[in-house]
C-alpha cells in the first residue's frame, strides 16, 4: 500500500483519539501514543524519501487522477526534498515530545493533541502539490501554532507574542490566498503543475502581482525582513518544545513553500527574468541576515537571542535559494537540516536552564550553571555548529552556497555568512561563558539595554537533576548535526534531491501525464576550496574572540553610548517595538515593496 497519505492521516487519527479520550486517558499513555506516532511518522517519511529518489511519487486523493491534463482532485507530489523535510519535522517533533515528558503536568492531553495536528499539518504542507491545499495546511499549522504559542496564559508576554504572531501570519495567509485566487482566475487550476503548464512564458501584471503576494505571504512565515518581527516575540515566549519546532522547521517551511512554488509554477514564466528574482531575494536575504545577527547579539533573554539568530540564518537560507541554482539549492537544504538540528539543541539547552534554574535571563543566570558541565559542553558544541564549523552540516550547506555564489559573481555572499556566524555564534558563546563559567559582569546594560522579559517555570517537581529525557534529545540532535556533515554521500543525495526539485518540466510531466522522468544530477565537487574551509574556521574563532571580548572588562559599557556601533544597534532595536501596528505597517510596506521592485526589475528587463 502506498505510504503517501500516512504522514498526515496517522497524526490526525491519533489527535482525534487523544481528544476523544481526553478525560480518561492517563498522561503516560498519551505520552506513549504521541511518541509512537512521531516515530511511525519518521519511519514512513524516511521510507518515502528512499522511494522518491528514483521517481517523484504522485498520490491522488480519492483516486482522482487527472483527465486530459486537468487535475480533478488533490495530489501529493513527493520528491526527496518534500519527504526529507517531512522526516525532519517528525524527528524534531519526536525530540520535542520526548523533551516534554517532564513538562506541563497540569493540562491533560490537549498539548499532545495540538502537537500531533501540528505534526500532520507540517508534513502535509511539505508533501502537497496543490496550491490551495498548501494554504489549508498553512492555516492548520498556524492555528495549532497560535494556540501552542500562547500556551502559558499565566504570563503577559506569551499572550502578546501569540497575538502578534497570529495577526501578522493571518494577514499573510490572506495575501497569499489573494495571489492564489488570481492564479486560479488566470489558469482555472489549483494543481501547481497544471498552473505552471498553463502560464505564458513571460509574466504579465497579474502573474507578477500574484507571485509577489504569494511570496510575501510565505515569507512572513519565513520571517524575512521586513516581515520578521513576529518571530522573536513568538519564540521568546512559547514553551521550549514548541520553540524547537518553530525555529527548527516551521519557519523554514515558509521558505520551502516559496521554493516549491517557484520551481513548480514560476520557473518558466520567470525564466528570462531570473536575474530580477535573484537580485531582489539576495538583497532581502542579506538584509535579514545582517539585522537578525545585530539583534541577536543585543539580547539577554536567551530564547529571544536564539530567535533572532534564527532570523539571521533564515536570511542565509534565502540567499541559498535566491541564487536559483541546483548546487546552491542543495546547499540550502543541507543548511536547513544542519541549522534546525543545532538550533533545536540550543533551545532544549535553554529549556534545561529554565527547568533547572528557573530563568532564561543571561545576566540573572551568571555563573549559576557551573555544575551543569554536560549541558555546557553541549551548548558549545551546538554553538560551533551554528558558526558553521567544519564538518557540521551547516558547513556543508554554507560552503556549497558560497561556492555557487562565487561562480555566479557574488563572491561577497561568503562574507554575509561570516558576519552572521560571528555575531550569532558569538552571542551563543557569550551566553555560554557567562552562564556556565561565570565570566563577565552581571550588571544591567551589558547587552546594550535590552529589557528583561519575565518567564515562568514550565516544570514541576525536583529540579536538582536534569532528566535524561531532557538532555538526551539535545545531545542527540547536536551530534546528528555533526554526523550529517560526516556521512559520505549526503551531498550527492542533496544534489539529486535538488535536481529533482528544480526539474520544472519533469514535475509537470510526472504529475499530469504520469510520465517516467529520468534524472541526471550534476556531479558535486568533492573538495571545497581551502578558502571556504579557512573562512568557516575563522568565523568560529572570531565568534569565540567576540564572546570573550564581550565578557572582558574592555567591552565598552554604558558610558560609551555615543559610539556609532552602539547607536546603530540601539536604533535597529527600537524598530522592534512589539507593537502590532508597527508590524502590520511594515508588512504593508513589504508587500508594496516586493510587488513594485519585482515588477520594475522584470519590466526593465534587469
Amino acid at each position, binding site marked *: 500500500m502506498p505510504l503517501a497519505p500516512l504522514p498526515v492521516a496517522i497524526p490526525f487519527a491519533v489527535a482525534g483519539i487523544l481528544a476523544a479520550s481526553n478525560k480518561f486517558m492517563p498522561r503516560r499513555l498519551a505520552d506513549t501514543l504521541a511518541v509512537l506516532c512521531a516515530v511511525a511518522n519518521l519511519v514512513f517519511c524516511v521510507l518515502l524519501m528512499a522511494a522518491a529518489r528514483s521517481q517523484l511519487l504522485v498520490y491522488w486523493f480519492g483516486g482522482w487522477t487527472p483527465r486530459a491534463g486537468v487535475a480533478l482532485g488533490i495530489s501529493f507530489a513527493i520528491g526527496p526534498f518534500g519527504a526529507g523535510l517531512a522526516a525532519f519535522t517528525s524527528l524534531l517533533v519526536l525530540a520535542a515530545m520526548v523533551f516534554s515528558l517532564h513538562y506541563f503536568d497540569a493540562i491533560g492531553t490537549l498539548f499532545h493533541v495540538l502537537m500531533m495536528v501540528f505534526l500532520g499539518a507540517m508534513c502535509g504542507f511539505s508533501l502537497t502539490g496543490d496550491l490551495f491545499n498548501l494554504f489549508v495546511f498553512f492555516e492548520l499549522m498556524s492555528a495549532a501554532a497560535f494556540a501552542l504559542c500562547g500556551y502559558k496564559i499565566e504570563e503577559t*508576554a506569551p*499572550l502578546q507574542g501569540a497575538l502578534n504572531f*497570529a495577526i501578522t501570519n*493571518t494577514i499573510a495567509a490572506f495575501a497569499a490566498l*489573494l495571489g492564489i485566487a488570481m492564479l486560479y482566475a488566470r489558469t482555472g487550476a489549483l494543481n501547481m503543475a497544471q498552473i505552471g503548464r498553463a502560464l505564458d512564458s513571460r509574466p504579465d501584471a497579474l502573474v507578477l502581482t500574484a507571485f509577489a503576494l504569494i511570496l510575501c505571504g510565505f515569507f512572513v512565515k519565513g520571517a524575512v525582513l521586513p516581515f520578521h518581527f513576529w518571530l522573536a516575540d513568538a519564540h521568546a515566549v512559547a514553551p521550549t518544545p514548541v520553540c524547537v519546532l518553530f525555529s527548527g522547521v516551521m519557519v523554514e517551511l515558509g521558505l520551502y513553500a516559496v521554493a516549491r512554488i517557484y520551481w513548480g509554477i514560476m520557473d518558466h514564466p520567470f525564466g528570462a527574468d531570473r536575474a530580477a528574482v535573484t537580485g531582489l531575494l539576495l538583497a532581502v536575504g542579506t538584509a535579514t541576515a545582517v539585522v537578525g545577527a545585530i539583534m541577536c547579539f543585543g539580547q539577554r533573554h536567551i530564547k529571544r537571542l536564539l530567535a533572532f539568530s534564527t532570523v539571521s540564518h533564515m536570511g542565509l537560507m534565502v540567499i541559498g535559494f535566491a541564487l536559483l541554482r541546483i548546487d546552491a539549492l542543495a546547499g540550502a537544504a543541507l543548511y536547513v537540516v544542519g541549522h534546525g538540528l543545532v538550533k533545536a539543541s540550543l533551545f532544549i539547552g535553554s529549556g534545561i536552564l529554565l527547568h533547572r534554574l528557573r530563568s532564561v535571563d543571561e545576566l540573572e543566570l551568571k555563573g549559576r550553571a557551573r555544575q551543569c558541565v554536560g549541558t555546557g559542553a553541549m551548548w558549545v558544541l551546538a554553538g560551533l555548529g551554528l558558526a558553521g564549523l567544519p564538518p557540521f552540516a551547516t558547513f556543508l550547506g554554507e560552503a556549497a552556497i558560497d561556492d555557487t555564489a562565487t561562480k555566479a559573481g557574488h563572491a561577497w555572499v561568503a562574507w554575509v555568512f561570516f558576519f552572521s556566524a560571528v555575531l550569532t555564534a558569538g552571542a551563543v558563546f557569550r551566553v555560554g561563558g557567562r552562564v556556565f563559567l561565570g565570566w563577565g559582569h552581571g550588571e544591567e546594560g551589558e547587552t546594550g539595554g*535590552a529589557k528583561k522579559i519575565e518567564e515562568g517555570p514550565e516544570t514541576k517537581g525536583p529540579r536538582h537533576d536534569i532528566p535524561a529525557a531532557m538532555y538526551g534529545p539535545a545531545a542527540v540532535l547536536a551530534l546528528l548535526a555533526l554526523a550529517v556533515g560526516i556521512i559520505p554521500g549526503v551531498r550527492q543525495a542533496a544534489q539529486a534531491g535538488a535536481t529533482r526539485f528544480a526539474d520544472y518540466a519533469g514535475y509537470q510531466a510526472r504529475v499530469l501525464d504520469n510520465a517516467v522522468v529520468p534524472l541526471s544530477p550534476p556531479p558535486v565537487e568533492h573538495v571545497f576550496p581551502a578558502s571556504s574551509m579557512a573562512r568557516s574556521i575563522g568565523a568560529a574563532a572570531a565568534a569565540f574572540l567576540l564572546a570573550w571580548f564581550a565578557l572582558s572588562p574592555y567591552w565598552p559599557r554604558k558610558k560609551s553610548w555615543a559610539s556609532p556601533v552602539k547607536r546603530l544597534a540601539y536604533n535597529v*532595536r527600537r524598530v*522592534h517595538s512589539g*507593537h502590532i501596528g508597527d508590524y502590520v505597517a511594515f508588512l504593508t510596506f513589504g508587500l508594496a515593496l516586493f510587488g513594485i521592485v519585482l515588477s520594475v526589475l522584470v519590466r526593465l528587463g534587469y
Partner: protein
Amino acid sequence: MSFLPYFVAAWLFLAGLYGIITSRNFVHLIICLAVLQSSTYVLLLSIGYKWGGVPPVFAGAAVGTPAVDPVVQALMLTDIVVEATVVALLLSLAVQLHKHTRTLNPDDLEALEG
C-alpha cells in the same frame, strides 16, 4: 461593472490593513481582520462567476445548464471556517491578555520591546 468586484476586493484589503494599523483596541483590530478577510471572499466569488449561470446545484436545473464555478465556492466554505476559527483563537488570546494587563490597547503593552 466588470472591474468593480476586483476594486472592492482590493479596497477591503487595504481598509482592513488601515483599521489594524490605527487600532487602539484588540477587539476592534480583530474585527478589522475579519473585514480584511472578506476581500478574499469577494475576489473568489467574482472570479468564478459566469453571466447567466445558475448555481452549481442541479436538483432543479438539468445537467448541462451553464452554471457558475463550484470550485471557488468550495474554497470559500473553507475560507469561512478559517475566519471563524482564527477569530475565536484571537479573541481568547485578547480576553486572557486583558485579564493580565487590564488594557486592550496595543500602545499600552511594552512586554516585548527590543
